[in-house]
């Protein structure tokens, strides 16, 4: 304390100068709007920088939660999109399809009969026969469920049969997979007379009563004509990539049993 006093007395002129400067600065800031603006702008800029710094770490650790939230949001959006679908659809009312989100836990791609495992099951209201879509397109159909998991038969399964339509022309065919490359499949039984182009998009078929109409499956690479059966087939490139862990959206048709009842002879 005594040292501070001694210091102050020794440098009294400089101390007074500093006091006057501080006084002047405070008067300036008190009275001048411009200086206040400058001051607060500086303070806010630094605060923003700091929050940006901490926020980037926080957002990194929050990524998982954000992903889940986005997935849920996507589910809701798909449900809404479904209601406003412009394609010829089998939608009877807005509550026909129920969407659930989940994650693919396991997928095999290099077998003859591949399968995927989903982290949602009976407890989430899934039943065998529900359709599964990935972020980019159709993945497959559920064939077995347990309380917490379900098994999906993807398009790249030897016995998978999913019907699809050519979006441009409206003709339908069946998508099959004969092994080989996991992102290529074949659409068969298309009429010979239609003129198919490469890049034509194949979308889900409303007749299947599994998927809502118009969801993308793949695009045509080239066509093969079979003149003896008067049909043609096309090799399509699938939009969905089975070789990665990804979110999945399961669509259940609430009116399936009613539909089954009426088409029975």
């Amino acid at each position: 304390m005594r040292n501070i006093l001694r210091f102050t007395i020794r440098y009294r002129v400089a101390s007074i100068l500093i006091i006057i400067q501080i006084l002047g600065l405070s008067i300036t800031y008190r009275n001048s709007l411009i200086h206040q603006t400058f001051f607060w702008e500086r303070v806010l800029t630094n605060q923003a920088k700091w929050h940006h710094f901490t926020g980037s770490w926080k957002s990194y650790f929050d990524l998982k939660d954000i992903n889940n939230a986005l997935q849920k949001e996507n589910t809701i959006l798909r449900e809404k999109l479904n209601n406003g679908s412009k394609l010829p659809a089998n939608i009877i009312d807005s509550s026909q399809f129920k969407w659930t989100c989940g994650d693919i836990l396991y997928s095999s791609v290099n077998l003859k009969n591949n399968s995927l495992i989903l982290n949602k099951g009976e407890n989430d209201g899934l039943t065998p026969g529900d359709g599964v879509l990935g972020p980019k397109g159709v993945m497959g159909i559920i064939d077995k469920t347990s309380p917490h998991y379900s098994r999906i038969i993807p398009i790249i399964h030897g016995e998978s049969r999913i019907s699809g339509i050519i979006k441009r022309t409206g003709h339908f065919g069946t998508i099959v997979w004969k092994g080989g490359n996991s992102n290529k499949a074949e659409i068969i039984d298309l009429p010979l007379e239609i003129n198919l182009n490469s890049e034509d998009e194949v979308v889900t078929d409303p007749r299947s009563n599994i998927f809502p109409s118009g969801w993308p499956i793949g695009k045509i690479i080239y066509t093969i004509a079979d003149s003896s059966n008067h049909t043609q087939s096309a090799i399509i490139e699938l939009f969905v990539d089975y070789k990665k862990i990804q979110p999945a959206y399961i669509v259940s048709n609430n009116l399936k049993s009613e539909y089954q009842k009426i088409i029975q002879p």
Partner: protein
Amino acid sequence: MRKLNTWLIWSGFLLILQSFIISKIQVYGFLNPYIYVGIFLLAPTYLGRISFLFLGAVIGAWIDFQIMSGGIHMMASSLLCYFRPKILDFVIPRADEEDLAFSPIDIGLGKWLIYAGIGIILHHAYLFSVDAHSLNEPLLLIWRTFISTIASTLLITSVLYFSKNQLDK
């Protein structure tokens, strides 16, 4: 200046000139001559340092009060008052102890311009940088300081020469 009376008359004259004429002048928004700085430059050397510092603060605050500029003149003036003995000692060694005269008539125009120039540039640079509150536009700041320093120095020197017969005989 050596005589207190002469200096006091000078101070009053410069303050009135500053308050009623010069402060009303603004050319292009960046030419602001402040001739009241002459008061500090011409102050007698036998004033105590602390009282001189307070004097600077009071005169600066008075100018601030008139042109409503917060406390920037107070800061700049007290800074100049703090450094004036050093500047004087640098330009005219031993002016302090031997009570030498240092008005432009006494020391010659060249030395006076150096002395006044250093003091005014210190005052103006500090004043304008506090006023701008940032160094974001250094060129504008330098330009403003430069132009205003020249204007202030010329005004103070010409006023001193003009009235040399009336005062400080």
